[in-house]
């Protein structure tokens, strides 16, 4: 019936181009639900979804929660303070407890790479990876790709530039796989400490001079700089970062007129991007938020209908 057979969404690396396209097409249908008078469909009625966010994230959690509501699923939220993990319970035991309560879908955000796969291998429930350490954040990549396709009509042949902290970014990794599989050209840019050469082996270009690459970009995706953590070790100062890699008003002038500007949020205005560029017509930052809801509805719908592989 469909190309989608999986019960889990763990990474973009494991998906085929056909599977990614299936999610995007399904997302388009679910996006329309948001424009109906009644913004709710019964597809997951009677199903229980657990938002298991070991690492806190308000935005992603709310997006999944709203997506689940619109699919008529029942939602339980578990955060680090409400979970027993703080009392020394292991991830495995907490997860087994969730399964014993008949959770149909577990959306997991965790600070350890591989945590989603860890659960998927041990539980019958569907597992949706909402970010595992620096590994992957597949729904973010899907909503980014959906947004690009919606605006540009295609992915293949486009030149996408991702700027910022690539080393610690799960968003970057998921985007790289999704874009490459769909035939885009990808260039990573940022300080050489945060964009290691090993990334080039994935099939992307690496640049440390954004003024050279911005004129050819069809899309610029800016990643959040977490200066509290990285400033001292990875680059000398925020000022120097802005000078070398910030999308300033002046730099925006060398972009193509129809270049899309994206950011997974939350934005540091004046650091990754000048405030007025973030609010300019080329910016699709709020579209990303809207599309995130549709993409997550699609992912929950598809995974709920998928079967355990193997």
């Amino acid at each position: 019936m469909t190309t989608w057979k999986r019960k889990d969404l763990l990474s973009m690396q494991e998906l085929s181009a056909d599977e990614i396209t299936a999610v995007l097409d399904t997302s388009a249908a679910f996006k329309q639900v948001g424009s109906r008078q009644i913004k709710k469909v019964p597809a997951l009625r009677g199903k229980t979804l657990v938002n298991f966010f070991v690492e806190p994230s308000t935005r992603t959690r709310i997006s999944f929660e709203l997506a689940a509501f619109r699919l008529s699923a029942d939602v339980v939220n578990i955060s680090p303070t409400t979970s027993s993990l703080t009392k020394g319970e292991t991830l495995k035991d907490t997860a087994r407890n969730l399964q014993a309560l008949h959770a149909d879908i577990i959306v997991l955000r965790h600070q350890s790479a591989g945590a989603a796969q860890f659960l998927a291998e041990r539980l019958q429930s569907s597992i949706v990876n909402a970010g595992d350490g620096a590994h992957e954040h597949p729904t973010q990549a899907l909503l980014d790709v959906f947004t690009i396709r919606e605006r540009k009509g295609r992915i293949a042949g486009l030149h996408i530039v991702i700027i910022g902290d690539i080393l610690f970014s799960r968003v970057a990794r998921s985007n790289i796989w999704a874009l490459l599989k769909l035939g885009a050209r990808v260039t990573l840019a940022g300080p050489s400490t945060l964009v290691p050469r090993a990334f080039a082996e994935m099939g992307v270009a690496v640049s440390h001079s954004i003024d050279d690459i911005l004129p050819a970009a069809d899309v610029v995706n800016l990643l959040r700089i977490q200066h509290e953590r990285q400033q001292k070790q990875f680059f000398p100062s925020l000022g120097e970062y802005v000078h070398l890699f910030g999308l300033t008003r002046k730099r925006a002038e060398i972009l193509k007129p129809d270049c899309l500007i994206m950011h997974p949020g939350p934005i540091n205005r004046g650091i990754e991007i000048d405030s007025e560029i973030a609010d300019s017509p080329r910016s699709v930052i709020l579209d990303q938020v809207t599309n995130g809801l549709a993409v997550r509805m699609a992912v929950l719908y598809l995974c709920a209908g998928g079967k355990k592989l193997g």
Partner: protein
Amino acid sequence: MLPPSSSVLILDGPAIERALRRIAHEIVERNPALQDLVLAGIPSRGVEIARRLISIIEQIGHARPEFGRIDVSMHRDDIRERLSPVEVSQLPLDLEGRTIILVDDVFFTGRTCRAAMDALMSFGRPRCVQLAVLVDRGHRELPIRPDYVGKNLPTSLKERVYVRLRGPDEADDSVWLSKP
């Protein structure tokens, strides 16, 4: 999927054409205000049938009902049994005061129709909803009855009905019944 070679031909191209013409006449007769009418096809073959009915109605009634497409997958109650691909629905922005005719190829248990009505209601509140089907094979599981039927076809539960249409199927118009 091709019908198995042992299948029996129930309707050929001309018979399908006649059935659709009859349905079109009945629709025009019951719905004088053709401009308020929307024919909403249920994917995938209901969409093609809706298109054909609209062009016949335009010929005989001198007005063109609006076309629609309604996705039922996300309103189904059997996601674990079968994962249907969802499609974008296409309906007028305002359903208030409109008459919607749902169009499908084969009418069986009634569950698809129920899902379609459910989906329809989430778009708004039409004045009236009717149902047109090419084949009614019986075995209703819900209290739903079609308003327009091309062919009543008594079947056993083990039999399967195959509808093939030019366009979606790249085959000649035909309806087949396969024995188990």
